[in-house]
């Protein structure tokens, strides 16, 4: 048996760490549990911050740089706190040909940020995806999980204003 049950203390008192620790225990706290554990952290907190990465490194005995390498390799993991709303723009081939660069340009003009960034006020995350799988509807973006096909720049901007200001 390896050093089960003597996991180091989590970085803060958030109850959600219990779930993460459970995942580590379930996998014998072995370095092989890295991806599962990062999944659990991402799921619990919505992103992986420095403290979490350091904790996972420490708890599983995986070097910091390796944890960082894995966390930045997979698109599923995010290292920045996500915005309240989220917009995924497909940059796959079909969407690209059908005019996604125009959408990206319009987003940049309106919000002053590129894909894979979070707005300064924390209200919006822009993400890119390399094919959402419904190329027939190109160009596609999804706003808070709702897929919008055959999209024009105006429609996308209107939709985003609607969800962001719906909060206010």
């Amino acid at each position, binding site marked *: 048996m390896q050093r089960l049950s003597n996991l180091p203390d989590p970085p803060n008192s958030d109850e959600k760490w219990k779930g993460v620790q459970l995942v580590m225990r379930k996998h014998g706290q072995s370095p092989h549990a890295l991806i599962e554990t990062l999944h659990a952290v991402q799921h619990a907190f919505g992103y992986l911050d*420095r403290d979490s*990465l*350091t904790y996972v490194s420490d708890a599983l005995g995986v*070097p*910091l*740089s*390796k*944890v*960082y*390498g894995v966390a*930045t*390799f997979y698109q599923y993991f995010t290292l920045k706190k996500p915005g309240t709303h989220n917009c995924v723009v497909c940059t796959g081939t079909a969407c690209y040909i059908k005019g996604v660069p125009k959408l990206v340009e319009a987003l940049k003009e309106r919000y002053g940020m590129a894909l894979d960034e979070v707005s300064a006020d924390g209200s919006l995350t822009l993400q890119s995806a390399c094919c959402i799988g419904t190329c027939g509807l190109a160009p596609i973006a999804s706003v808070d999980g709702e897929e919008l096909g055959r999209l024009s720049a105006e429609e996308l901007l209107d939709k985003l204003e609607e969800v962001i200001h719906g909060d206010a």
Partner: protein
Amino acid sequence: MTEIQSVQIITLTIDGKPVGASGGETILDVAKQNQVFIPTLCHLEGLIPYGACRLCLVEIKGNNKLVPACITKVAEGMEVITNNERLQRFRRWILELLFTERNHVCSVCVANGFCELQSLAEVLGMDHVRLPYLHPKFVVDATHDRFVSDNNRCILCGRCVRVCSDIEGAHTLDIMGRGIKARIVSDLDDDWGNSPTCTRCSKCVQVCPTGAIKEKGRRSVGEKFKHRDVIAHLAEMREAAREED
């Protein structure tokens, strides 16, 4: 049950010449023993083979896929072709892609004259590049008091990562991200100079095939002489010590 493992003897041909090998050896091992040159970049004697650069691709009769010689084990009756027009063309393409991906400007590089990328381009006759250069602008990390990491000259061979983790046991360096954005980081992409894990052993400097990791104080062009065989020596000594235990 202790029994003396009998070494399996394998016969194969390399470029038509019959050669003998023992089971478990790679095509590259056997080619070297028989003075057959196969170009390599990510491979380094003493490090665990990685198969990343694909420069060592060879043909095997009856197999329509090319295989990397550095990680492919020899097999009985194998007919290996290490060099022909097609392989040379592919190898030159790989080099061209490497040259365009980062900023390999030899005339202003500390590794000029000691660079494996440069010398392979010479040996394989890659004398011009047909693709546009990407000219990336990676931040150079010069925070360490002894070393500099310049991702603009990195070919992502992973030698520094492997020597740091497998030989030194520090694992300060690793590769982050993917694709053309992939780069070498220390710890959580922190300043190398403040790394709590770096032991300042300088093995990464010795193994880096280009000028991507260099020692400070070497400002001029062509100063980066390296002792690459030191890693094979260390690995061998370690193996010997283990066997004694």
